[in-house]
């Protein structure tokens, strides 16, 4: 590299070294960053993904006894990575009027046990720690910190559709 005679050659060499050092750092950072985005994106994104919600048919509104929670098993196909799995999930359908049905998740909000309907006590009861809920899902007794999760519902030509 030709150096103008009025520039100190030692200083020019130091400057060149510094420039090349920075070039190396910049290029390696770019390469590493690109790889980092691809690899990091692939590693992190499945862990952060939210499952898509959808409307599933849960039964006929005419089959439901008014104000009596009826346990219905929903089969929810879910993509689990490469695999398609079917989650079986029990929800309680409660017909509150001719045109309205509420749907409650059967998972106890305390520690995740499966609640069931006790028709004598007219309560949803959790077998694990004695959590109790009324037919709206509100906690009436026991340790559950929150009411049962309610799903959105709609009626379509006599079919009850639940959004899960």
């Amino acid at each position, binding site marked *: 590299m030709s150096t103008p005679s009025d520039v100190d050659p030692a200083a020019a060499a130091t400057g060149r*070294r510094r420039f*090349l*050092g920075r*070039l*190396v750092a910049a*290029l*390696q950072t*770019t*390469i590493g960053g*690109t*790889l980092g*985005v*691809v*690899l990091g*994106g*692939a*590693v992190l*994104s*499945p862990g952060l993904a939210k499952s898509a919600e959808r409307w*599933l*048919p849960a039964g006929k509104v005419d089959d439901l006894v008014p104000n009596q929670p009826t346990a219905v098993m*929903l*089969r*929810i*196909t879910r*993509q689990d*990575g*490469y*695999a*398609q799995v*079917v989650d079986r999930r029990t929800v309680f359908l409660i017909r509150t009027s001719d045109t309205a049905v509420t749907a409650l998740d059967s998972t106890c909000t305390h520690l995740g046990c499966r609640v069931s309907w006790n028709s004598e006590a007219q309560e949803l009861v959790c077998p694990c720690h004695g959590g109790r809920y009324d037919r709206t899902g509100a906690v009436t007794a026991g340790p559950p910190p929150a009411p049962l999760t309610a799903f959105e519902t709609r009626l379509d030509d006599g079919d009850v559709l639940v959004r899960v």
Partner: protein
Amino acid sequence: MALGPVLDWLDSRTGYRAGLSHLLDEQLPAGVGWWFVTGSILLFLLGVQLATGVVLTMFYVPTPDHAHESVRYIMEGLPFGRLLRGLHFFGASFIVVAALVHMLRVVLFGSYKKPREVTWMTGVVLLLVILAFALSGYLLPWDQKAYWATTVTINVARSGPFGELVAGVLRGGEALGALTLLRWYSAHVFLLPACLIVFVVSHVYLMRRHGISGPAEPQAGPSVPFHPYQLARDTLAMALVFAVLVGAAAMFPAPLDEVADPTDATFVPRPEWYFLSLFQLLKYFPGPLEPIATVGIPGLVVGWLFALPFIDRAPGRRLRDRPLVAAGFAALGVGVVGLTALGLRDSPPNEGPRWTPLARAGATFVQDARCTACHREGGGGGPIEALRPLRDPEWVRAHVRDPEVLVPGTRQPPEGAMTLGQAHSVVSYMRRVRARTGPLPAVSAQEGAAAMIAGRYCSSCHMLDGEGASSAPDLTTVGRTRDATWLREWIADPALVDPAASMPAFGQVLSEDELEAVVSHLAARR
């Protein structure tokens, strides 16, 4: 920044600065230039392959049941997955090229000579390890290419010494299957990386021990430190290669054929380009001569490579002082390039999945209410399009005839039954859907009718395009030997043409239009 004292402390406990300085401040002989970036590029590409490979193992499943689906998921479902697999897939080819370029550079500069013989030999081992990586890697997606190319590889191994033993070890079981896939996977992710790391470390250690060889003729001038002068060249070259690699991975999806099908007779296996020359070589040594191509010639080439520093012992490193070595590599290069070109010409790439008449018929059959009663979103069976066609047509037919037998508690057997041809058609359709064949193209009403008849009746006994039953002659190219007139008479009533015919008459089964449709379809098959 209070980082200084922390680094000082770290250095006092580890001495990392001296280590770094040892790595970076190596003095290189004058005249080391762009030619000497090849090794760094190779090392960099191996690093990329290692990093992408580790992430791929988080999503890949090494079993015949799930391998293909898991690769499909990486390509289509996983964010950045297409790019990830693309980097790994094209990276393999880049590495083979980079390794060959590096080797040619070493040969060009005579760098293998005393005292660097062992450095060269570890390099030859690394070339073999890289080829083993490539070979084991392409079985893993468990697609058609993987399956058939590996079948060929294992059969090639049988022709060598202790052939059956070697083939058995490669297969891991009685036939190419789950055990094969697992051991090739294990080799690809544990064994070979371990070998690679050991030999890369040895190779780099020896390179540093003897110093970089530098130009063939020593040049006058002061030596220069590796950092930043040569490192800048290395890094620029890496960045360029990496940019091309990312570009390739972003622009072209890494190929994935249909899932491996051991019964498919229509698939023509063709290995990756870097094995094509060996594959082609096989064609010139048939029968008992085969070991010459499978073991003899490759063995001689590898042996010659290993022995090169001992054969060529003259001290001169300039290429013009070594005409025999130059001629040897030129001959090897011409041979490999020539065979690869012939191989490319002889075995055109497979067209990929396409809609056959049976697949077209299957698309209609699966819309039958007896199927969709269960096979729908949220239904007991899941949509047919989402199912993996793991079962053969015999199973499908049995399933439809009496589901209670196969899946107790499902439902009553449906009325009516499926023909074997319909079952073949449904399986064919499912395979096309899984292979992402694209939308079903529109055809004329007559061609559509012919497809339905072929699916419902013909394929119950005959083979068409590699699909269907094989109890009667293959009809794929029936138009070459039979014309429309003969076909019409035969299909309407075979007994009138040949009293000994075992095929039933279809004159009463098919309408005149249907008969016309199927006859013109078959007559056009040439």
